[in-house]
């Protein structure tokens, strides 16, 4: 079975700044992977290249063998890639339930037009049960009918993650999910992610600064430094690697 995610010598620069300089790594087995590195290591740029927010200057990205680095964002999503945003984006005017149901909706334009006159609400009924279950898991069950705009920052982040999970993605990319979240919610987030991973056996890649959170969650860590993958391996090995310590302490 080919790798789920394969990043092959990707480079990206803005003017003179080489943000990503030939980064490469492969993820074959399902698991929770951490992507860490000091500021300016190119984590966010690489993350954006994989998600499609940025196009790579050179190199390639493959999702389950299919090359995606030239596709537009929505095409990658339909191939099973899902992501959350560092700035946490939700549909503020829609209710929490509608946020999740919208994520589950089939976005194919042709089928949408047929539904416009067919008026079938089939998918919403089938997705409803799963949506409510996931919302309950993150204690948002009682806020189903509340517009997302009224939620706290932490609750919005949980809603965003639930919305990206409802579509059963093959690869879930989380962009600093721990930032700005109080410890109690952090534990709930960790348990939720572990439970979802246990249920779904997918690949989760987390870009994160919160070492304690990432080390307790990820089974495999990738360390980036100056645009390249410096080190990768289980958390214990990576924490003791001299190269990583030098990179951080400079």
């Amino acid at each position, binding site marked *: 079975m080919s790798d789920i995610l394969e990043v092959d010598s990707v480079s990206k620069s*803005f003017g003179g700044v080489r943000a990503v300089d030939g980064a490469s790594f492969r993820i074959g087995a399902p698991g929770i992977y951490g992507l860490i590195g000091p500021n300016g290591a190119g984590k966010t740029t690489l993350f954006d290249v994989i998600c*499609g*927010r*940025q*196009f790579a200057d050179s190199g390639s990205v493959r999702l389950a063998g299919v090359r995606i680095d030239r596709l537009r*964002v929505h095409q990658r999503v339909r191939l099973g890639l899902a992501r959350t945003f560092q700035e946490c984006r939700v549909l503020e005017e829609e209710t929490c339930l509608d946020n999740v149901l919208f994520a589950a909706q089939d976005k194919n334009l042709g089928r949408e037009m047929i539904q416009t006159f067919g008026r079938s609400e089939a998918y919403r009924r089938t997705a409803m049960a799963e949506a409510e279950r996931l919302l309950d898991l993150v204690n948002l069950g009682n806020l189903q009918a509340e517009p997302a705009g009224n939620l706290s920052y932490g609750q919005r982040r949980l809603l965003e993650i639930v919305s990206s999970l409802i579509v059963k993605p093959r690869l879930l990319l989380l962009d600093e999910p721990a930032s700005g979240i109080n410890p109690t919610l952090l534990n709930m987030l960790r348990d939720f992610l572990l439970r979802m991973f246990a249920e779904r056996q997918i690949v989760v890649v987390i870009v994160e600064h919160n070492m304690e959170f990432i080390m307790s969650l990820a089974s495999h860590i990738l360390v980036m430094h100056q645009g390249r993958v410096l080190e990768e391996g289980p958390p214990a090995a990576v924490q003791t690697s001299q190269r990583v310590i030098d990179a951080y302490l400079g």
Partner: protein
Amino acid sequence: MPASGIRFAVTALLEQIVNGMMMGAIYVLVALGMVLIFGVMEVLNFAHGVLFMAGGYLCDVFVVHATGSYPLAVVLTMVTLAIVGMALERTVFRRLRVNLPMQIVASLGLILIAENGAVLLFGPSALQLSVPSVRSLVRVGELSFTVQHFIIVGATVVSIGALHVFLHHTRFGTALRATSQNAEAARVIGIDSASIYRITFAVACALAGLGGALLGPLFLISPQMGDLPLLKGLTAIVLGGMASIPGAIVGGFAIGIVEAVSTLFIATEYRDMVVFTVLIAILLMRPWGLFSVRVRGDA
């Protein structure tokens, strides 16, 4: 093409380039004001055309009823409109900084107020303001132009220079550029963005007033005199790349010249179509405008 034909074509081309520079200068004055306001405040001021028109009427009032001297009237017009600009910014546009559709509604409301106000105060028919520089002519070989043509181009070049000095060599100007690049960052280091917005609007409206005061005597001062300059000015800042001042300057002059020279090849009533077709063509090739750099996140 017979010899005389070539000579005719060259003089015609020269004549249209001068006319193009003159109208281009007017578009630059309007575009500069709009690009300043948009660059600093993310506000697209559709009411800029009526400020241009107000410049024409104010200049007429200051010449005929107050001072009798055109240069003094132009200065008074610019000062008055700077004050009007500050008032507008405080009452209307500051609250609408982010909300684009409401900026448009507010601008359209201001257009209705200004154009119909002009009809109420000065009557529907246009005013004709006769000033010395429009009556005296300059002969250039077989061609002749009013002195006003060259005053307009000269005044615009001076304004561009003054604006450049203000923006790059004064403390206030640097603060203004900082606010345009990143309002929050500027505020963090102690720049009072409220006064920046006020000054930006004052300078922008003064420039528009200057444009109206310069073009009014050459043609007519009428309630609708600002409409076409607004559209051409908008086209200029889009060509230039929305927030780029050099882009607005080159865009304004380019439109003026292309528009004027195009009338040698196609019928004049299609002149305005030329400008809009050029705009759409350029945006197809460079969807972010001629001059502005590709902004990060523009995948």
